[in-house]
């Protein structure tokens, strides 16, 4: 019976895949045949159901897992042999333990709320089924990432979520900007994947050298149950730099997926996707998989404190940079995007100083409040005719009270209101950083990153208050300042259908093209997309229940989630049972006991002060009205904010540098290809042609040249071979 419940994990994994197939193959047909209203309802329900049922099953499995004694909380289930090549065997196997189930609950739980929200948010979308096709596939891939019992399966999910992210960022592909953003996301992620692949190879190499020589073990070098318990033995067999290299290579993968400096570039652009995507993929789940990876591989990272120092420093840089850039953003989603970058940096600070479980704790609480904030921003955008510029908002609390009040909860949670979820995990990060004696060339890394984290705590409260006050308070309703203009909308659209009379109507014997009559019928069937612009005539409306219900649920989690995970679940102990290193660098315990309490209380007070300071700053600056030096006229902005709006030039330099540089290299290589390599061949051919003519063959041209080249070459070679054979005969 107990075994049966764990077997249900296959259903958790399979349901989103079934959902994906249903959406992909029947979605468009059903919506077309039942009409947009009913059809979309049905497909929406079919999209939410697999994820919600998956969540229920996962909850049941987790409950069963929690009943087991701590040391036996692990089940590995194998489905089939995936890759077997003599010295490497990679089965398709899943691992049910505390870490993977925690992630599964976040993915399916938050995932089903966001799916529900999306059924409302995307209700007017023409490609409704295509959206849920990608979204269900994403959940499936993400589950493989966290459930797989080996690094190769992790990689499958890793790239799978990457491709879903690519497809969803480019969901509105007609906008050129979106398609560029999609490509950028995938390619930057691939840079990370390069590191991850090599990290996997390095670990496999070390494992096979250490364990394979014995010859009596299955060559599952990438499986966690082979790697993790032997971390000590593998470490002992190699130079420390080997393990540092392996960890840093894995971390490059994490940097790509979890948007760490300098590979964070793709995440802000990824906001081009629909808002539910930003909430699910680019805030709650996918971008945290780097933290998951570090937690999973923590027995290895724990052996390499130097790698940990690098992780912590990169995390601190990212946290600070993301927070600073957020001040310069006017697009509500961009503020949240940079906030996500910054918070991800926070998680890596925790992992870097050795408190892996704290990193995952912040993953969970961040999933609650950031998903809430993104969905809330989506509701705001929905209410504001898809205008995302906060300078056009103001006083929205009056119009959309449910959205606004839930978003206020999210704001307090991320800013660090005491005893809300964000405050718990943030203070845990601060405590472990300051308490860590992690050093690097004598520098007290723990103190440094802890100090940065404290500064970022203040900045977070400040820029989130800026966003909140600009949107929901700050005196005036600024969209009313936009004059209504008569837009010649329909005129534009007629042209798009491309009735160019110049089209050559050459005979179409294969039936490749629509006839004039069919074109007319299509034009009749396709309704013109109304969209109306934000202007003075606009009145914001509250969103439908399918959209505000998830907001309320997430708001609840944002309030109590942190305390519940900390005290109710005892996350440290729970994750510890999955092999996550919990106490390795927890050096606060090494300081005298009477100081421990004092340190903790001081950090609590400091963090609370940061929260209050940030909010007060925000209120003073944005509470009453929009200050002129943060208004529509960028030239009035201060230096700091203006550079922040340009990401301090980092994105421009790196992206344009690489694209431009790559283009130059490509063009140069092509020129080289055409002139040198090919030119050499053609040139030799011409030369021999010339010789041929001089010898009086009387024929000219380049083809003849080739033939002549061939003849001369062949003759020379035959002579040489005959010579060789003769000397060979002589030699023996």
């Amino acid at each position: 019976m107990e075994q049966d419940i764990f077997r249900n994990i296959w259903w958790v994994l399979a349901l989103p895949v079934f959902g994906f197939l249903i959406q992909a193959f029947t979605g468009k047909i059903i919506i077309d045949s039942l009409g947009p209203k009913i059809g979309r309802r049905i497909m929406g329900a079919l999209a939410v159901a697999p994820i919600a049922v998956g969540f229920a099953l996962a909850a049941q499995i987790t409950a069963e897992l929690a009943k087991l004694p701590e040391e036996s909380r692990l089940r590995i289930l194998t489905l089939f042999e995936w890759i077997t090549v003599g010295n490497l065997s990679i089965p398709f196997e899943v691992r049910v333990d505390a870490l993977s189930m925690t992630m599964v609950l976040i993915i399916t739980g938050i995932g089903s709320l966001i799916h529900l929200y999306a059924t409302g948010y995307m209700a007017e979308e023409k490609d409704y089924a295509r959206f849920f096709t990608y979204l269900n596939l994403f959940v499936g891939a993400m589950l493989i990432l966290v459930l797989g019992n080996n690094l190769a399966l992790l990689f499958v999910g890793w790239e799978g979520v990457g491709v879903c992210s690519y497809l969803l960022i480019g969901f509105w592909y007609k906008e050129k900007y979106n398609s560029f953003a999609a490509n950028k996301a995938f390619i930057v992620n691939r840079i990370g994947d390069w590191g991850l692949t090599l990290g996997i190879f390095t670990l496999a190499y070390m494992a096979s050298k250490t364990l394979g020589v014995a010859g009596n073990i299955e060559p599952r070098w990438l499986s966690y149950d082979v790697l993790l318990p032997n971390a000590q033995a593998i470490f002992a067999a190699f130079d420390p730099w080997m393990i540092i290299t392996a960890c840093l290579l894995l971390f490059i993968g994490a940097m790509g997926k979890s948007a760490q400096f300098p590979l964070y570039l793709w995440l802000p652009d990824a906001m081009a996707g629909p808002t539910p995507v930003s909430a699910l993929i680019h805030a709650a789940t996918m971008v945290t998989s780097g933290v998951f990876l570090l937690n999973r591989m923590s027995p290895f990272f724990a052996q390499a404190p130097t790698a940990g120092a690098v992780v912590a420093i990169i995390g601190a840089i990212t946290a600070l940079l993301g927070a600073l850039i957020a001040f310069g953003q006017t697009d509500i989603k961009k503020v949240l995007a940079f906030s996500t970058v910054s918070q991800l940096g926070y998680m890596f600070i925790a992992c870097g100083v050795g408190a892996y479980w704290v990193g995952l704790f912040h993953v969970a609480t961040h999933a609650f409040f950031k998903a809430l904030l993104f969905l809330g921003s989506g509701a705001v955008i929905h209410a504001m005719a898809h205008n995302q510029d906060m300078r056009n908002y103001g006083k929205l609390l009056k119009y959309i009270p449910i959205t606004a009040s839930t978003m206020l909860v999210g704001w307090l949670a991320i800013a660090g209101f005491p005893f809300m979820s964000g405050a718990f995990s943030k203070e845990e990060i601060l405590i472990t950083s300051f308490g860590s004696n992690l050093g690097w060339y004598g520098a007290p890394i723990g103190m440094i990153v802890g100090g940065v984290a404290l500064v970022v705590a203040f900045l977070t409260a400040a820029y989130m208050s800026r966003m909140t006050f600009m949107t929901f308070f700050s005196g005036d309703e600024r969209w009313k300042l936009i004059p209504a203009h008569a837009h010649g909308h329909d005129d534009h659209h007629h042209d798009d259908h491309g009735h160019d009379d110049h089209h050559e109507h050459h005979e179409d014997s294969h039936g490749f093209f629509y006839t004039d009559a069919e074109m007319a019928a299509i034009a009749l069937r396709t309704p013109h997309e109304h969209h109306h612009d934000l202007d003075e005539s606009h009145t914001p409306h509250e969103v439908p229940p399918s959209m505000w219900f998830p907001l309320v649920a997430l708001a609840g989690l944002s309030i109590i989630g942190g305390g519940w995970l900390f005290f109710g679940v005892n996350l440290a102990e729970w994750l510890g049972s999955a092999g996550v290193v919990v106490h390795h660098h927890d050096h606060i315990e090494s300081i005298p006991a009477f100081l421990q309490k004092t340190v903790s209380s001081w950090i609590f007070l400091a963090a609370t002060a940061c929260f209050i300071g940030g909010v007060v700053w925000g209120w003073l600056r944005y509470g009453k009205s929009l200050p002129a030096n943060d208004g529509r006229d960028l030239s009035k902005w201060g230096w700091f904010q203006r550079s922040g709006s340009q990401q301090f030039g980092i994105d421009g330099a790196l992206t344009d540098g690489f694209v431009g540089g790559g283009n130059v290299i490509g063009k140069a290589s092509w020129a080289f290809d055409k002139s040198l390599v090919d030119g050499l061949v053609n040139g030799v051919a011409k030369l021999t042609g010339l010789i041929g003519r001089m010898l009086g063959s009387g024929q000219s041209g380049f083809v003849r040249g080739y033939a002549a080249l061939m003849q001369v070459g062949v003759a020379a070679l035959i002579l040489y071979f005959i010579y060789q054979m003769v000397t060979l005969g002589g030699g023996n």
Partner: protein
Amino acid sequence: MGVITTTILIPIIGMLLILFVPERFGKVTKWLTVLFTGAAFLSSLSILNQFSKETFRFQMLEVANWIPNWGIQYKVGIDGISIWLVLLTTLLTLLAAIFSFYIEHRTKVYFAMILLLEAAMLGVFVSLDLILFYTFFEATLIPMAIMIYVWGGKNRNYAAIKFFIYTFSASIFMLLGMITLAKMHEKIAGHMSFDITAIQALVASGEFWQNTGTMQTLLFWAFTIALLVKCPMFPFHTWLPDAHTEAPTAGSVILAGVLLKMGTYGLLRFVLPIFPEATMANVPIIMWLAIIGIIYGAAVAAVQPDVKKLVAYSSVAHMGFVVFGIFSLNQAGMMGGVYQQLNHGISTGALFLLIGLIYERTHTRLFADYGGLKSQMPIFSALFLIVMLSSVGLPGMNGFIGEFLALYGGFMSAADGLYGMKIIMPLLAGTGVILAAAYLLHMFRQMFYGPLNPKLARLKDLKPWEVGLVGVFVVFIFWGGIYPNTFLKPMEKSVNATRMMVTNGPGARPVWSDDSHDIDNSGNLIEVNARNADGEPDTSQGIKIVKSADYYTDTNVPPRNAQEAR
């Protein structure tokens, strides 16, 4: 007559039949071609059915004398490396023939050429006699060149002749090498022989290359250059972009899908087993060429304004992975290289087919003439997306398995410092997966994303039979990625034997023509004194291992402190 000869003969009979059909009955010609390529495919399935994955040796052997005085035979057989290439050939030819229903111009010769090409390609993959191989190898050139020359694009004249002369000149070197090998066989055994199993037996015992000085290196390069031109590998690749771009769609599919594999197949079949010492000595050079090909091919592909040229240059990069895997001389890496041959055939074949489908409609290959196709042709774009991602090497699809294993094997050999490999090699080769994403996504974006190009506003989506045609590729893309063991298991022993023919010392190498040893399921080379009725080794006397699989211990650089760790 055995099943292999039957498979080769079916298309030849079809070709002869077609020559008697008058030109005006184009439909009959087309259906006859589909019938015969279909029959050849069924026949190759029966080869697969009879195939046993328990041995590394050649199966279904057929031998007949051809020119006995010079030791030239008609000798054909199949092993784990060639079996999938034979099936790939028959499958791709069938699909290319079905696509070619769009051909209206001089149908008779066109379809005769397709059938002739199929027979020649099949011959290449089953020949066990050097001269027979060479004959088939060159025989593929003529129909291919004619296809480019008559049905190609604007610049077809130049492309066809360049293709023909370039590859023909290069293989002259190989022919000379073959004659030298036969002569050397005569010196040792008393009679000339072009039979590779006979030559390899002498190589395995070490007799063949005794006191021959630099001869092995010389002949190694004579073979290798000819085959690298075919792959094609930098810097011998410049015939490929022209040939690919100008060829008609079916020609491009076959060229990318099968013809390029003749190069890598030749490396596996002749170069590795016959020139083991030279192979090991020259691994770094070949590896560098492969790496340059991977990066350089990608860089040039990224700036092409022509979709077909982009895919052509991507072949240079992808075949670099194949060569990289094969020359890693690591079991996983070689499996990856061999598997990647098939994957490249499927993915790139499918890409050319898809480009052909759109080219039939728009008659342009320039990106500038496309844009926004996704809304106009959703099914076409979905299929294109899948095939493109398989070419990118997305896990869950076939391309990933091959690339992953090839890089894995290269990494393992390089980390051990074997064969002069450096750790920088797999690091650089790995950047190929970043670059592949860059140029293929760039391609997809230019064709399918952005606002719809008004010139395309009248395009209908694919027809059902066209979807079915591409669907076959899609099935193999997912099958190869989700359950690769279907394809990996049958090739495992042959690949392992090929590896051991190189890396093991004289006397401990597997021999094709000698029954006294075998490879067991753990990959060890074992001595076999007696066999039971099924031909399986009799293990009742215990097993004597001649050479263990050496997956982990065959290393010049033992891991530091490994002894203490145990």
